[in-house]
């Protein structure tokens, strides 16, 4: 992990609340960035916000070393702005060998963390279904490739056809608000147990979108309560096998 400079080359509004930033990175190590990993960015000389922001790539163009970043429109960035980048943060999502059907679920939470994975999976010929529940239903899907099946649901945990989908899926990634992660991830596990005989290891991964103060494993503020109390989102996250979490 290194600190380097990057330049915002373009900004594009993709919906009422979301923008995409084309970020030209100088550190070629970032060319290896994988779905799941993110960047710690300081985009201003100001001390407000004080902590670095966690920027999530949704795409990468290796020809020109440009990352697509999805960011809420709570701030305006100008083309040409230089930012300081620390990264990559965390591990890439691990797709099990032979997993051809991916089920991605954004439970009442923006699916941003799932988009890069979705794009790469499609490129590699996998079948992908994206489930958007609760407020995630409002996420602008116009920009997504038509080959993705998108399912909307008002209800937060379950969705129409969830049983069948959990049956055919080879691997599932879920994201929800960290505030409700424990109860909601448990509910998804219940759904899956109801739907199928066995839950193989790594079948269900939950993404923990916690605030990342340091990104280096130093502060331990991003620890997820695994059986060993050793899961740091910034080092071994953001996705954790739901079967390995500690239950309170």
């Amino acid at each position: 992990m290194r600190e380097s400079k990057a330049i915002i080359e373009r900004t594009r509004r993709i919906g009422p609340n979301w923008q995409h930033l084309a970020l030209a990175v100088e550190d070629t190590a970032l060319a290896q960035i994988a779905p799941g990993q993110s960047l710690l960015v300081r985009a201003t000389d100001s001390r407000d916000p004080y902590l670095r922001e966690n920027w999530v790539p949704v795409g990468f163009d290796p020809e020109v070393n440009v990352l697509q970043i999805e960011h809420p429109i709570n701030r305006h960035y100008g083309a040409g702005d230089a930012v300081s980048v620390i990264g990559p943060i965390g591990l890439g999502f691990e797709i099990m060998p032979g997993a051809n059907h991916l089920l991605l679920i954004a439970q009442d939470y923006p699916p941003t963390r799932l988009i890069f994975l979705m794009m790469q999976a499609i490129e590699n010929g996998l079948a992908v279904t994206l489930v958007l529940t609760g407020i995630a239903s409002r996420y602008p899907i116009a920009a997504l490739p038509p080959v993705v099946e998108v399912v909307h649901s008002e209800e937060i945990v379950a969705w129409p056809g969830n049983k069948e989908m959990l049956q055919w899926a080879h691997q599932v990634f879920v994201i929800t608000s960290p505030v409700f992660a424990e109860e909601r991830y448990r509910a998804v596990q219940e759904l899956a147990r109801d739907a199928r005989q066995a839950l193989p290891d790594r079948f269900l991964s939950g993404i923990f979108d916690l605030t990342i103060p340091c990104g280096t494993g130093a502060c331990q503020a991003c620890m997820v309560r695994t059986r060993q109390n050793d899961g740091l989102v910034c080092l071994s996250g953001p996705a954790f096998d739901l079967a390995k979490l500690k239950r309170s």
Partner: protein
Amino acid sequence: MRGDPITQGQRKGKYMIEITRAGKYSLIIDNPVMIATGMAGFDATAYRDLIDLEKLGAVVTAGISWRARGPAYGPRVVPIGGGFLLHTGLPNPGARNVIKKYSRQWSKSSMPMIAHVISTTYEDVVRCAEALEGSGGVVGIELGLRDDVLPDELTASLDAVREGSQLPILLKLPLHSAVDLWEIAEQSGADALVVAAPPRGTDRDPISGQLVGGRLYGPWLKPQVLRIVGQIAELATIPVIACGGIHTPDDARDYIGAGARAVQIDSLTWVNPGMVEVIARNLGGLELTRAVGALGDEWEPGLGKTQVMQRDQGRSAPPPASPPPQLPELPPRDEDQTAPTDPTNDL
């Protein structure tokens, strides 16, 4: 403890700064800039590629207790105006596991590691100190306290560390009670005073809506701590190490100017790690003995020695700060009056 900081020669061709009580418990480092507890993990290797660790005087580990501690429940980071609140619960796998995992790295590193010991029960602190000394990897122990620690507890915790080890003890005092507690700490055998642990506060997590209590970090800590460092360093007979909100070389110099022997960098390590190295490089030039031609406080990257001299001579001095009419405030420490004696002065 102001004035005459001890410099007993040079190690690795650099400066030597004694950051603890002279004598049996003396601890000497070669750069006055350290990283504070909790900021760089248990062995700082996470910052290997972000900071040239060799430039630092020392690194203090994350908090270590005899028994393992789990992370806090609920939200652990809350942004506050120009800073943040942090509530980790001081998770660590317990002293034996920390030592198993990191002591090889500690011994290998040429940068001194200071272990931060969480003051839990008397027995546990004794065992923790014993184990850390036995590990052979750390050069000193920094003792952390509850924010609302009582004098007796402070004394007992110091006793426990001393019972368990013969390492120099740095005592980290809580911000709000540092002025009341430093003298007891000095008398009870602390070898250095770290001023101060960040204050605790309570604020609402915007994501969950919950109230969270934790330690507060940000650049605004610096003026709060600087005042207290000045008050304590004026009187203490053991070295004072300043910690709180350092974000620039000038922040660090202000602490040294107020009488601190060394400084610890806190949250800057996370938000701008590259600057930690710049500060260490800058302060590394702070020749505390004021050798021939040395300019204690005038280093800027890219500025040659002669230019520094010229600039210094040409500067018209600002009028001295007059004290306010009836409100005595700790006067700024007189700058060292030693005139530079470098012959190039005359050019």
